[in-house]
């Protein structure tokens, strides 16, 4: 079998227009050997999950700087489960208050990476927790 690559969707749900962080992380993931589908701004959970289905993504990375994470992040997890994609790893980043993290994790977001998280930590977490092919 050929070498298996990690396929990751990087998406920004909601109306948030600041994409520098998401774009930087997309590059970092690509340099770590992953195949990154950057879906861009103004994505609905439905659009993100449809992309995850078609791309057979192993990981969905969600970025939110505008406070919409409490609705959007769990909604993405819910829709993935509806599609029987329970083993897709969902991670989030951006401006997420510490207090919100437990509820997000309970809803199925595997980890939240706040600003300043060393990027190799994020890559390591993904590689350690991604589903087997």
């Amino acid at each position, binding site marked *: *079998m050929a070498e*298996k690559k990690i396929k990751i969707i990087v998406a920004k749900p909601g109306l948030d227009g600041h994409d520098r962080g998401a774009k930087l992380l*997309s*590059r970092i993931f*690509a340099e770590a*050997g992953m*195949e990154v589908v950057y879906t861009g701004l*103004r994505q609905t959970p439905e659009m993100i999950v449809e*992309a995850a289905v078609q791309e057979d993504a192993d990981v969905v990375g969600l970025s939110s700087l505008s406070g919409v994470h409490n609705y959007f992040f769990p909604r993405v997890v819910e829709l993935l489960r509806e599609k029987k994609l329970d083993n897709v790893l969902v991670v989030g980043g951006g401006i997420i208050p510490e207090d919100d993290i437990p509820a997000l994790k309970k809803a199925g977001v595997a980890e939240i990476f706040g600003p300043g998280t060393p990027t190799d930590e994020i890559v390591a977490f993904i590689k350690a927790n991604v589903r087997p*092919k």
Partner: protein
Amino acid sequence: MEYVSEVLKGSPLAVARMITWLENEDERARPFMEEIYPHTGKAYIIGITGSPGTGKSTLTDGLTWQMRKKNLTVGIIAVDPSSPFTGGALLGDRIRMTRHSEDPGVFMRSMATRGFLGGLAQFTQGATKILDASGKDMIIIETVGVGQDEVDIMRVADTTCVVLVPGLGDVIQSMKAGIMEIADIYVINKADLPGADQLYTEVMYRVEQDAQMKNRKWLPPVIKTVAVEGKGEVDLFNAIMAHRKYLEESGELTEKRRERTRQETLKMLHYELFRIIRQRLDKDHRIDLMVGAIMEHKISPYKIVEKVVNEWLPSRDS
């Protein structure tokens, strides 16, 4: 999941999973490809190629829109390069096609080249078969946009569109070998930029030259578009349909597909044969021993090749 029946029903999950297996050379792919093969051959395949930045993704998006208006279902494969250093890839074509993301009549898959040259990924053709079997009427393949040498698309597509933009080089560029030779349709995108009319004239001139030099029955039309504004989409769609009609009526489509099948079969044979031989040579470091002997000038590489071939094909006709 019963993947074969799901793919034939058009299930996006099944289609996506099968493409992944194909890409990863998962042994589960082979029996499935075998089973879906009888259901291929109906889709019409369009290639969109051209240098980076010419607007291929935006054009693909617009073309898809036109096809959907005619109730045609569409499969899109967008190919992007893998880094030769890190092995990773930034697959950024999907971002131009978000308006179709929730349309069940459109399936889009990004593929990384994983080191394969020629503008496509190794298993793009296989993925096309899966989309075909899943019932898509049209398949659009958007190649990596590196320029001159990426001519593999012509072997995979029924209609190949070469996209140019004004200001990317002088008329001499357009005469060079490779990419300019494979066009069934020329698209001048960003036609609102200065130099568009001049480029149009230059390309038309080249088309006329080709008509005089070669015995071509199909003269490639030159379509002007401004993809970000949706201008020219209808013309492009119509030109593709006209080419299709020409190919079907002249019988050329069958010949094209025959040639495609020949190339693909030979390629697959080549790949499989070498894979097996390579495995055997890697065993017990046989290849390393051979290389050592060659380095010490104890034997030539030509002799080694002769020996290995004779092992595998002992009774050869001369």
